[in-house]
């Protein structure tokens, strides 16, 4: 079972991201369970959403405390919320930013990872908001991040992500998100290749 | 559907619960005596015939009326209608115009030629009725309807008695009298005119089983007034009687009438119509004391008749009379003052009342007379068995309506007497007083004014002064009746019962109470407009 935790702020489509991720997994014939961190949070407040993916029925209802993957939709949360709490050593981390982990002052997180595993293939930063602005016109990074996470984790295919987006949105909004997700997918793939060759 | 136990119930099942057992008082329907009926001298069921009139069935109304009084058209003109004085509606706005509706019905009957129902069976008895005045006509009519053969004899050449010879045309047109007399004759009553009975016993020998005396009062009372022979002194009776003849009496330009009764007024108004410049009534007392009806006085004054109150005539001279002024003493009686005044007078008419000619009654055994009238018992029978009397000759209240009442009363008593019984009038129900009514339910509707002849023609002609009502306003007037004390099926009780405990029996059949459910709240009685429901205590 693969467990993903998504951090963001109210209004950034965090919950939708988790739901789309579950839909993408469902598209691939797998079992998936997405749920928000229930609460009465309003726009701007830190929120968390969860997604479990497995090949058998998922019965577990507890929150995800030891994620296999982490998607951080808003780097400003890094200093407020213990986003990395419980993250597995071999867990994936995708952060919505145009800056590097080091620049963000979380090099050690990346470092910790890099020490054991092949460099870069488990962490990546992605300017998802910019991609969103470019393709959708609004800084809603969730679809782009899903595209990026598909590339980073290989957990789901880009096609599944696109299908999930189509399930949630329609028309131009869907197209914009799909474009953002696709470019993000390519961006991460490129980043990983470069990292390998570095 | 299979209903859930207890929480769901079948419709109307509460009929099983007889709430009548809660009752401590119970409502009952009653018929109370309306004040109009109570005061009618002719004993008419006024409320009864008004009820038919208001629903537009005039013939039914008329037939209800003539049950008691065969002369509606005459009554509608000449009756002084005490009923209207007693009418409960006076307390609301104005009395119901009973008299005008009565006249309307009478005129309708004449117009449509409605006739009386013939008696079912004949008794074979014959009754002599002396006098074709209101008393005699009424007695004969009722006797005939009761199956007896009535024979009216009268000295005059026309029937009607004082109605014809005492009441001026402008109040009572003669064709009206003729029509209503004829209807009585058509019923089978035998009428012999120009026949004077001088001896009753003799007349009876023709083969009569009983007799009714209704000869009226035709003899003018005289008063001694010193008068020069050139002077012209007449009496009211002969003046009014003279109006019936070919040549009307010549009264001159200045006429003085002495007296204070309705007859004095009639004469004074007649004089005006005959062309008198001055028609003066001299009366020794005040207007308050005057026996004549106020509305008659009013009409007279309107027509230019003048009245000298507190005055007596002491002497009748060549072309004038001497009048002495009177003054009321401490006890309110007029006393001479010694002040005198001369008034121009071509004619002096004395209207001091009338006496009855009792000569025909001499040597009738047992028959008692006194103060100019025949003494009768409660059943109108004189001291002589089988001889009854009524009208002016048998009472001091001398009106047409009283006479008609006498006639009816006597007829009923005679009917009983002829069967060897004694007449006992049925008990009178309780009076429907104003307090018994709930007048909220009556719309405001002021009395209808009858059309009145314009004043010029009233002073010059003998056309009828007071007009009649047309159909709509006659019905309107009838509908102003409050139906005091008698259910008119307004449905109030039926509507206002909170327990649906009033059963409606359909048109004409009124209602009845369903005592199974009546809780005795008394709302029906409280909301009954006409006081036809009484609330009585349940006997425990």
């Amino acid at each position, binding site marked *: 079972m693969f467990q993903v935790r998504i951090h963001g702020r109210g209004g950034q489509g965090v919950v939708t991201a988790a739901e789309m991720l579950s839909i993408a997994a469902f598209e691939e014939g797998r*079992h*998936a369970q997405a*749920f928000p961190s229930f609460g009465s949070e309003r726009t701007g407040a830190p929120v968390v959403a969860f997604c479990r993916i497995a090949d058998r029925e998922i019965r577990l209802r507890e929150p995800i405390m030891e994620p296999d993957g982490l998607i951080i939709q808003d780097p400003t949360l890094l200093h407020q919320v213990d986003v990395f709490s419980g993250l597995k050593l071999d867990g994936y981390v995708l952060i919505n930013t145009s800056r590097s982990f080091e620049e963000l002052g979380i090099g050690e997180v990346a470092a910790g990872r890099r020490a054991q595993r092949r460099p870069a293939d488990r962490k990546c930063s992605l300017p998802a908001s910019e991609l969103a602005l470019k393709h959708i016109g609004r800084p809603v990074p969730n679809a782009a991040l899903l595209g990026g996470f598909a590339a980073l984790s290989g957990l789901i295919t880009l096609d599944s992500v696109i299908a999930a987006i189509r399930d949630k949105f329609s028309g131009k909004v869907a197209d914009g998100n799909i474009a953002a997700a696709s470019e993000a997918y390519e961006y991460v793939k490129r980043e990983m290749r470069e990292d390998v060759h570095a | *559907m299979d209903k859930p136990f207890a929480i769901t*119930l079948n419709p109307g099942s509460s009929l099983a619960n007889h709430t009548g057992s809660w009752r401590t008082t119970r409502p009952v329907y009653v018929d109370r005596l309306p004040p109009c009926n109570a005061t009618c001298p002719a004993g008419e069921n006024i409320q009864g015939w008004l009820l038919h009139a208001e629903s537009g069935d005039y013939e039914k109304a008329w037939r209800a009326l003539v049950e008691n009084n065969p002369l509606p058209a005459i009554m509608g003109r000449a009756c002084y209608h005490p009923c209207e004085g007693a009418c409960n509606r006076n307390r609301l706005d104005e009395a119901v115009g009973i008299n005008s509706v009565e006249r309307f019905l009478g005129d309708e009957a004449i117009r449509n030629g409605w006739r009386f129902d013939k008696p079912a069976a004949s008794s074979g008895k014959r009754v002599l009725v002396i006098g074709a005045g209101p008393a005699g006509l009424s007695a004969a009519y009722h006797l005939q309807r009761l199956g007896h053969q009535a024979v009216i004899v009268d000295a005059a050449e026309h029937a009607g008695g004082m109605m014809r010879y005492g009441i001026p045309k402008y109040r009572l047109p003669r064709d009206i009298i003729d029509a209503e007399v004829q209807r009585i004759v058509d019923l089978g009553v035998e009428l012999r005119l120009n026949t004077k009975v001088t001896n009753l016993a003799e007349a009876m020998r023709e083969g009569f089983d009983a007799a009714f005396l209704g000869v009226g009062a035709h003899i003018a009372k005289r008063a001694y007034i010193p008068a020069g022979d050139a002077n012209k002194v007449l009496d009211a009776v002969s003046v009014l009687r003279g109006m019936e003849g070919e040549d009307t009496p010549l009264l001159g330009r200045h006429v003085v009438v002495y007296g204070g009764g309705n007859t004095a007024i009639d004469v004074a108004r007649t004089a005006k119509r005959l062309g008198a410049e001055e028609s003066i009534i001299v009366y020794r007392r005040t207007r308050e004391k005057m026996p004549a009806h106020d509305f008659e006085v009013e009409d007279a004054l309107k027509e230019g008749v003048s009245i000298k109150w507190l005055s007596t005539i002491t002497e009748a001279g060549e072309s004038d009379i001497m009048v002495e002024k009177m003054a009321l003493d401490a006890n309110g009686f007029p006393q001479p003052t010694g002040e005198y005044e001369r008034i121009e007078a071509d004619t002096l008419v004395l209207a001091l009342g009338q006496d009855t000619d009792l000569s025909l009654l001499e040597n009738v055994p047992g028959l008692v007379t006194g103060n100019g009238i025949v003494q009768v018992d409660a059943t109108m029978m004189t001291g002589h068995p089988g001889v009854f009397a009524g009208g002016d000759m048998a009472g001091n209240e001398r009106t047409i309506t009283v006479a008609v009442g006498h006639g009816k009363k006597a007829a009923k008593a005679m009917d009983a007497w002829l069967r060897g019984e004694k007449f006992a009038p049925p008990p009178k129900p309780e009076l429907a007083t104003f307090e018994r009514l709930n007048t909220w339910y009556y719309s405001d509707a002021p009395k209808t004014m009858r059309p009145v002849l314009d004043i010029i023609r009233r002073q010059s002609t003998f056309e009828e002064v007071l007009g009649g009502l047309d159909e709509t306003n006659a019905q309107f007037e009838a509908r102003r009746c409050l139906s005091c004390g008698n259910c008119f099926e307004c449905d109030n009780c039926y509507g206002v019962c909170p327990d649906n405990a009033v059963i409606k029996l359909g048109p004409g059949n009124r209602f009845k109470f369903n005592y199974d459910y009546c809780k005795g709240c008394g709302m029906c009685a409280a909301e009954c407009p006409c006081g036809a429901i009484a609330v009585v205590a349940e006997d425990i």
Partner: protein
Amino acid sequence: MLKQCEGSHAVAEAVALCRPEVICAYPISPQTHIVEGLGEMVKDGQLKGCEFINVESEFAAMSVAIGSSATGARTYTATASQGLLFMVEAVFNASGLGLPIVMTVANRAIGAPINIWNDHSDSTSQRDCGWIQLFAETNQEALDLHIEAFKLAEELSLPVMVCMDGFILTHAYERVDMPTQEQVDAFLPPYAPRQVLDPAHPVSIGAMVGPEAFMEVRYLAHAKQMQALELIPRMAKEFEAVFGRTIGGLIHTYRAEDAETMVIAMGSVLGTIKDVIDEMRDAGNKIGVLGITSFRPFPLAAVADALRHCKRFVVLEKSLAVGIGGIVATDVRMAVTGMGLKGYTVIAGLGGRAITKKSLHALFDKATRGELEPVTFLDLDWKVVNKQLERERQHRRSGPVAENILRDLGVVAAKIV
């Protein structure tokens, strides 16, 4: 048809398939998405022949439902928490009148302190309201139970509450198998009311019943629920025949064969428990699970039968009968009267407190070792509790409990769980 969707959405669609004729809606989390979904389906014509009424309160919602049901319309509404409490008078009335209304309760805690998160306090507070109460373990079961609920309600002429955990199920995206309209029509006949307001056959419904008949009326209500005990398992079979999958029935067990310890619970927490039980079984621990679907009527016989061979049982429930402990536990104890079993009550997950595998492992180990307290409050922060108790011992004016505790805990926003 399989689909990945939100629990609320799944329920809304299932309800729509049941062809409801009147739906009353008053917003309260976490039930809101269900009526929102239905409202949309009515507006866009996807759900035909249905009146969707936005009422001014839950009290009105249940009252409107009473009116429409009594007039022969298949009626649905949903609520939670304070909303359920606000409509209580009408809730009792609906069952008293025997009106087959179906209502979703998206289970949520009851204040004060106000708390929008999940537990079972709302439904269990209505234990005795005369409604049938069915608890769903998964979104699949939630939607299936709604379909069953309408049939059950209308057959018995009793209202049915379908209880599903607020947020945990209502807001969870997971796979469900959505039946077709044909399947639902085949299972659920049109509503044929026991009693109806019809001018052709006038009746008075809701008479005042005095001492002479009230006991009987109440007994009949009880008898009806006893009938439900027979009916529910039969209907579960009919359901399986039409839809090709099982639903709860009265109870359902998991790895209960030869279990010495039986864990008893209701609702979505059963899933987490099952995962734990699997691991303990693998470790050779003879432990099983008994899930209760029908809380009312309470299947005394079935529960007793399921516990026949075990030594002890742990009732883990998301509700607290203040002053005694468990609510479900009390019922279970009644079921096993005289069977000489050791019983433990565990109060867990109140107000949305996460119930984790970790805690459950520790709990069940302790239970199997027979070391558990008769009544346990899972993951209770004793530090905070004792501090407040101490505070109250010391000052008369010790201040508001909830606020004090929050102060003691410090910033909670940063916490993930």
